[in-house]
């Protein structure tokens, strides 16, 4: 793989990454390092009430635990963020620990903005408009997929406008991504597969994005290899801490890749299908990915050769497009192997909605990073029909 002569890129710095089984049991040391005296944990009601994860963090924090905000909701809304920030402010929080999947981490990021800058979260929507360090934030993922612990964006839903919006800034990177595989062993199989394939789609799409660059490519390729090897193991042996840990690393690497290179058509379609039919985001990405890979097979040069190799293919002697098609076929087999479908129809997506999905996808921001311009809704609809 090589790069154009006019290559120009920015690779954003990433959080400090602390990895290891039971690493989270020493979270107090990280809080000390960051100068925290009054820590608020940001999580959802299930993790707060039905698991011992908050208790484990609390044990290490001691009297520096100022409160637990358990009001995180899926697809965080602006009011939920403002409520969390008010909770943290009342308790005098000087450090946040987000615990959970992407929604908890995104809520933690957004709360850090409000705690530092004041006002309400929607007053701060924008990209790279923040100008100073935020309330320190440690992100502790309990799923291995979204990569939010590594990204500079928080996605917030504004119910009043009925749309999602972003706050993006290098200051939004958590200070620490604390990756503890013992925090992910409780994930059910289906969620493990779907979040793992979400990470896979982050990596594959970063690899073919028009913003791709050497450093994001390196992270993406490593993520793909880790997922190909360890997602099936994590599914077969849910308590296999090695496999769980490798998946956390893969999600972290894929998050690094797409935070810098972005995602493209696959995510544009998944976002649109999710908005219309409320199917899990990772499940949709998995269903669409092999079809999207075929769609771009002639446009990605030799970039899918290593994807094919990671998935067990042999591409010696094949041209780039043939190797890319082999990678797509292998990806389809891999999706099936981890127990997910590559048929939208099996996810309850009605065929008659596909023209609307195609139109919506065309207006999704991710689409502009596709390896070739996609401007025609009929082209997307045809792709969706193949995936149906």
């Amino acid at each position: 793989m090589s790069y154009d002569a006019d290559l120009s890129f920015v690779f954003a710095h990433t959080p400090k990454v602390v990895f290891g089984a039971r690493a989270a049991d020493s979270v107090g040391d990280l809080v000390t390092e960051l100068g925290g005296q009054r820590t608020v944990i940001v999580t959802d009601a299930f993790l707060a009430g039905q698991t011992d994860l908050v208790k484990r963090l609390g044990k290490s924090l001691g009297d520096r635990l100022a409160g637990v905000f358990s009001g995180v909701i899926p697809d965080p809304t602006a009011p939920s963020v403002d409520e969390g920030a008010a909770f943290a402010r009342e308790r005098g929080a000087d450090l946040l620990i987000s615990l959970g999947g992407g929604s908890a981490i995104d809520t933690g990021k957004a709360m850090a903005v409000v705690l530092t800058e004041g006002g309400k979260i929607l007053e701060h929507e924008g990209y790279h408009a923040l100008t100073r360090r935020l309330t320190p934030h440690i992100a502790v993922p309990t799923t291995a997929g979204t990569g939010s612990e590594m990204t500079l964006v928080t996605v917030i839903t504004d119910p009043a406008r009925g749309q999602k919006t972003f706050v993006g800034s290098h200051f939004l990177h958590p200070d620490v991504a604390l990756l503890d595989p013992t925090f992910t062993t409780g994930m059910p199989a289906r969620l493990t597969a779907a979040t793992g394939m979400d990470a896979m789609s982050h990596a594959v799409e970063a690899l073919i994005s028009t913003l791709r660059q050497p450093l994001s490519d390196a992270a993406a390729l490593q993520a793909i290899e880790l997922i190909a090897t360890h997602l099936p193991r994590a599914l077969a042996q849910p308590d296999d801490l090695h496999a769980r840990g490798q998946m956390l690393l893969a999600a972290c690497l894929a998050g690094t890749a797409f935070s810098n290179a972005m995602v493209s058509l696959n995510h544009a379609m998944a976002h649109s299908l999710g908005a219309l039919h409320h199917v899990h985001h990772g499940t949709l990405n998995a269903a669409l990915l092999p079809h999207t890979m075929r769609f771009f097979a002639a446009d990605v040069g030799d970039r899918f050769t290593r994807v094919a190799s990671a998935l067990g293919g042999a591409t010696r002697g094949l041209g780039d497009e043939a190797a890319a098609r082999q990678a797509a076929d292998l990806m389809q087999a891999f999706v099936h192997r981890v127990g997910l479908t590559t048929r939208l129809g099996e996810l309850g997506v009605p065929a008659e909605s596909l023209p609307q999905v195609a139109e919506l996808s065309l207006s999704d921001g991710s689409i502009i990073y596709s390896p070739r311009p996609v401007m025609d809704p009929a082209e997307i609809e045809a792709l969706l029909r193949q995936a149906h």
Partner: protein
Amino acid sequence: MSLDFPSEAWTAAYKDVLNNDPGYKVAGAPWTAGALTFVVKAEPSIGLKEDVSFILDVHQGVCRDAKISTMEEGAKQPFVITGSYAQWKSVIKKELDPVKAMMQGKLKLKGNLPMIVRNVKAAQSLVENASKIDTHFLDE
């Protein structure tokens, strides 16, 4: 005659260019999200002593107004995009894609990013039309 960027004359020319372009009428037709403010950061070494703000009031493929504004008035608009003189020059010369520049932090956006990227064709047409103006850049 070349027009200084930024200046009242340049913004007036921009309005004319946009309203005379049938391509912008089509590309900008979906845009109903309000006016854009462009802030050029001060660069004393080339004679730009203070930040300059100009407002482009575009709606459904029509430029209703384009003017230099106070910073206060500019900050009230729904979208405020800020960059250095060099970055804006690169945008006008079509050397820098403004949406990618926002993603990379070369331009800073206050406002709803998805709305901007969903209207990427309108953004491209704005740049295309800016490049048509016979511009004198202060650093040349």
